[in-house]
């Protein structure tokens, strides 16, 4: 038995040595072609990302609109991207970014765009200009959680914040201006012992004065206390030390995520050919659903994309451009799977792309598949396997394992397999 195992291993080793003529397989990852654009509406409308306004609150949005419509003139193009849930008074603080409950409101982005442009060469001719309106949404349905490392750093950040909050309160309470604040407060508390309805005019005026005076002093105390912490002063050495550590931790904090995710994006463009609102047609539309498992290229990492496009610029399934894109809908899908196992000794990567034109029988759906696998036997000795199928059905293979498999299993096989991709 031992002899048989040694013989097989030796044969494998020899075959691996001899099989230097590995066939080349196109393993280029082309999944990026299907990825949803960062701004779906503007991508469909053809507006450059640099022209997009991104106001962070209502005031910014109002200013943006004002600037765009200066002197009551309507601009040739305007694009705005808003995160409506982030404009509310309640802000999403760092602690909510690791909770899937807040994923949709934190990632929800609405985009709206407008353009009134003429064809190439006729940009300035008013009668040739077509008005286009675009609208898009984008959000995450499920977001991966923080990695253990990120959670650990966050915990230490919170502990330092707790220390500094208490230190800040102490610094604030020991400020010299508090003496005057106390005097004013005693007087104010004396006045408010009576209901305000019974205050005399002099008491009303005094209460107003004292409130303003205390407020001013508190602002002064606040400024001085913050300065004391930030300037790392020796009289507040302990707080300054915590401040320094907290600053280091906070400035280097990054949210590393790991786990399952689902993202959705969609956009639509409506044309107004005669520049009239009662004459419109949908010129383009698209929807992207992206999901997968983010694992930092360790263990299992996967990505799957589904894409629907209506009247795209070019049809993915028709690279030669034989088919007109007029009223054409396409559905494309892609997947990528990466597996790293056995302490990094086994690695598998595969990619699948599917492309189709909906409702057209003259162009059949096609698919492409690539698979690469490697297993490290010993140092500098790897067993590898590669397999590929192109859109046209051509199959290719490579790696030293395939040679071994041919050697072992090829005795009774008459099937011919191409060794080179098209």
């Amino acid at each position, binding site marked *: 038995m031992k002899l048989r195992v040694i013989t097989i291993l030796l044969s494998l080793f020899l075959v691996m040595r001899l099989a230097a003529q590995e066939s080349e397989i196109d393993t280029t990852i082309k999944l990026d072609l299907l990825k949803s654009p960062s701004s779906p509406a503007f991508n469909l409308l053809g507006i450059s990302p640099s022209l997009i306004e991104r106001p*962070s609150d209502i005031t910014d949005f109002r200013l943006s609109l004002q600037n765009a419509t200066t002197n009551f003139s309507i601009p040739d193009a305007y694009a705005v991207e808003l995160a409506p849930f*982030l404009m509310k*008074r*309640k*802000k*999403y*603080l*760092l*602690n*909510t*970014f690791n909770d899937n409950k807040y994923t949709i409101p*934190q990632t929800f982005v609405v985009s709206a765009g407008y353009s009134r442009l003429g064809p190439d060469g006729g940009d300035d001719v008013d009668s040739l200009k077509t008005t286009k309106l675009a609208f898009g949404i984008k959000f995450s349905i499920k977001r991966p959680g923080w990695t253990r490392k990120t959670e650990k750093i966050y915990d230490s*950040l*919170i502990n330092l*914040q*707790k220390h*500094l*909050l*208490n230190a*800040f*309160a102490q*610094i*604030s309470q020991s400020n010299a201006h508090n003496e005057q604040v106390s005097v004013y*407060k005693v007087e*104010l*508390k004396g006045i*408010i*012992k009576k*209901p*305000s309805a019974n205050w005399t005019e002099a008491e009303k005026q005094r*209460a107003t004065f004292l*409130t303003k005076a*205390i*407020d001013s*002093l*508190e*602002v002064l*105390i*606040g*400024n001085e*206390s*913050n300065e004391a*912490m*930030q300037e790392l002063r020796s009289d507040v050495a302990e707080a300054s030390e915590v*401040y320094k550590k*907290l*600053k*280091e*931790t*906070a*400035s*280097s*904090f990054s949210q590393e995520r790991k786990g399952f995710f689902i993202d959705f994006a969609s956009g639509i463009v409506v044309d107004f050919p005669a520049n009239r609102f009662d004459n419109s047609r949908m010129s383009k539309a698209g929807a992207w659903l992206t999901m997968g498992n983010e694992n930092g290229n360790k263990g299992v990492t996967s990505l799957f994309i589904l894409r629907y496009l209506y009247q795209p610029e070019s049809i993915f399934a028709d690279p030669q451009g034989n088919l007109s894109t007029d009223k054409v809908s396409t559905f494309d899908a892609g997947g990528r799977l990466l597996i790293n196992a056995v302490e990094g000794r086994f690695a598998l990567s595969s990619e699948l792309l599917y492309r189709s034109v909906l409702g057209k029988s003259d162009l059949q759906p096609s698919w492409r598949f690539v698979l690469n696998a490697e297993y490290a036997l010993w140092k500098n000795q790897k067993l590898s396997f590669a397999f590929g199928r192109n859109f046209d059905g051509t199959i290719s293979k490579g790696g030293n394992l395939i040679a071994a498999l041919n050697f072992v299993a090829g005795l009774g096989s008459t099937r011919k397999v191409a060794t080179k991709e098209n």
Partner: protein
Amino acid sequence: MAKKKALKTLVNESDERTAHFGMYKVEDSDRHVHLDLFPGATGQSAISTVKLESTTLVREQEGSIEDLDLGTNAELRGQEMTIYTLVTDVSHDTDLTTLDMILKGGVEEYSISLKRTVQSQGDSVGYKITILFFQ
């Protein structure tokens, strides 16, 4: 039925203030007064402590505080509430730190917005709000 008087919101916005002292008018009733505390901006990290006289109502709470019951109008008369909040600039998108406070349930709604833009990434800002309840 007489139309109920709309609650007037007192908004005291000012630039780069980190502290505030104000008076909040309560009535002689059993109606409860509630506090909302919203630190910001989005993506920053914040910790808050809320005290009513010497009683700590909330100690070192992360993030926002919503609908905190401070007691009835009548109970709060003459009492002082102190809020300490520390906001640390963690977000790489903004250097702005903010603190919004809203009091509801008294005679009128009362709100205050404080803010400070930090000088460099990772800086922290300490905020203090003191409210004296009167009738």
